[in-house]
């Protein structure tokens, strides 16, 4: 079509890739041009630094139990276990994933913001008029939320990788960060960050309201740990063995089960069960978000 308003830019428009690629670039631009994304990243860096420090103190007390708190024999046994190759590997893994349990909240909430800010700022109509393919719009947001999760993981892991070797050295223990125990935790940590980012996106797409989605995300996350209390109480009443592993149905507990080396809690199911449950919730939320976004009127 002839440019009716003379335009150098439009005259030179060329192929800019698929709709999904264009939308993904636009999503990054949206994140980059508002303060929310940057504030989340700064907050995450500060939180990771704090978590590393606290984790370091905790691990130090494992290696050097304070006299008086435990008996000398217990202290000796605890320190010996912590200093064993397996103990040091677990310690290194915990350092490398410091703050993970609450760090994923940053990815979760940013995922929520990626989609709900469109409705909070009434830009959803602009977005869907620009590209009326709503499923593609949501997929671009899913990809953006996953990338944000991966970025948080990378930043947290880099900070931990810088801090962990000097810490281990200062404690006179050594462990390879390339060992299986550390690698497994770090890898699954990446999966957790990505999954929680997309989980938040799906939750936001389903609920649309920013306030409701943030509250729901926090309730789901914190409430997950309530399943431990509930199923323990049920076990005490009915003595069914499966009830001890059942708390894994809480998304945050599932995430813990997935990334923890060994049982996350007594009678916890294997790690893959946690992974399947977390990813299952995430897929269900995104699917629900896509269906609802396609069907809903944008008013």
């Amino acid at each position, binding site marked *: 079509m002839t440019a*009716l308003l*003379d335009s150098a*830019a439009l005259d030179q428009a060329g192929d*800019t890739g698929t709709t999904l690629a264009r939308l993904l670039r636009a999503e990054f631009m949206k994140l980059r041009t508002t303060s929310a994304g940057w504030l989340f990243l700064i907050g995450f860096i500060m939180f990771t630094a704090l978590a590393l420090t606290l984790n370091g103190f905790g691990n130090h007390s494992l290696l050097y139990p304070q006299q008086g708190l435990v008996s000398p024999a217990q202290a000796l046994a605890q320190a010996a276990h912590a200093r064993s190759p397996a103990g040091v590997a677990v310690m290194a893994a915990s350092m490398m994933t410091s703050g993970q349990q609450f760090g994923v909240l940053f990815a979760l909430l940013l995922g929520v913001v990626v989609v709900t800010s469109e409705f909070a700022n009434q830009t959803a109509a602009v977005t869907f008029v620009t590209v009326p393919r709503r499923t593609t719009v949501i997929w671009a947001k899913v990809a953006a939320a996953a990338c944000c999760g*991966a970025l948080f993981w990378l930043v947290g892991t880099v900070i931990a990788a810088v801090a962990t070797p000097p810490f281990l050295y200062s404690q006179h223990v050594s462990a390879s960060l390339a060992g299986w125990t*550390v*690698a497994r935790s*770090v890898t699954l940590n*990446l999966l957790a960050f990505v999954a929680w980012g997309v989980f938040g996106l799906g939750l936001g797409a389903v609920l649309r309201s920013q306030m409701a989605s943030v509250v729901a995300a926090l309730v789901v996350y914190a409430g997950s740990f309530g399943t431990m209390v509930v199923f323990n109480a049920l076990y005490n009443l009915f003595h069914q063995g499966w009830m001890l592993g059942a708390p894994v149905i809480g998304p945050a507990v599932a995430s813990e089960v997935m990334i923890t080396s060994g049982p996350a809690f007594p009678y916890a199911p294997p790690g893959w069960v946690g992974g399947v449950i977390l990813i299952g919730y995430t897929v269900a939320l995104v699917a629900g978000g896509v269906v609802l976004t396609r069907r809903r009127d944008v008013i």
Partner: protein
Amino acid sequence: MVVLLAVVVIGGLVWLVRLYRGGTRTDRARTDGAGPGLPGRPLGGKRVAPALMSQGRIDVRGLTKEYRGVRAVDDLSFTVEPGRVTGFLGPNGAGKTTTLRMLLDLVEPTAGTATIGGVRYADLDQPIRRVGAVLEAGAAHKDRTGRDHLRIVCQSAGIPLARADEVLGLVGLGAAANRTFRGYSLGMRQRLGVAAALVGDPQVLILDEPANGLDPEGIRWMRDLLRTLAAQGRTVLVSSHLLGEMAQLADDLVIVAAGRLAAQGTVASVIGSMTWQSRTLVRAPELEKLAAVLGGDAVVTPSGDGDAYITGADAVAIGDAALRAGVVIHQLVTQLPDLEAAFLELTAGKAAIR
């Protein structure tokens, strides 16, 4: 393995950054030496090829939208022609915004069709290059600059980012390009909305209350812009509550009330369709006595505030009759029908339905 994983993730992120930067770099290269676009250049008088004219026709047929049993839009049909400004009028809650949103595939119709050039909006190839829409003055992120808002629209639509500066200049927001939306006045927000609508240089423009919040200079600017765009052969459909402004701006009118079509046609034909073509407002203490001495064709209708409208007899005849009967006249004003009168007559009793 951690190192390998980190390398893979870093590689992925770098690829994404390059994907992102690639777009902007190409855009910069494309516009090197091209200048900012339209500095100071008046909108030209280019005419659209006849083939494009049919692509710009808006056709609404039997459009219906129900919300929980309430019909917001009820079997609405009208056509909007290219090359003309069509005013879309109706009382509050008449279904104007719902109709425009159905036209843009934001709201799913319960029944009926709304097409642009015979094609549903959702099925248009590169819709933003065909249709530009101004929906709400507050439709931008408060922390984002006007330029970034438009660059995101460009990015999503695959249009070079330099186009953002061109349309900012076109709507007179060049100096405020780097201010955040939070700091924009309502008039500036309206201009930004118009800028977003013009990003794709569309054949069709759909504007929902674009003059709301504009000062007199801004209203005049909007009128000149829309008239010029229509003169270029574009289709301009604009809803508004400002009847006086619409009388100056529009060529055609579509008037809806309670979700139904109340009138459609040129401004002159809509005004001409009124039940009276001329009336006289009379203020007199003895209206009954005056009515009795007027000829048989005269119809006296109380205005509700002690005065009366008289049709069927002009001011001269009324004055002569009053003199003969010795009736005192305090005021005698000849009124010709205008858009406001036509609008109120056509939508009488329907404004408060919802």
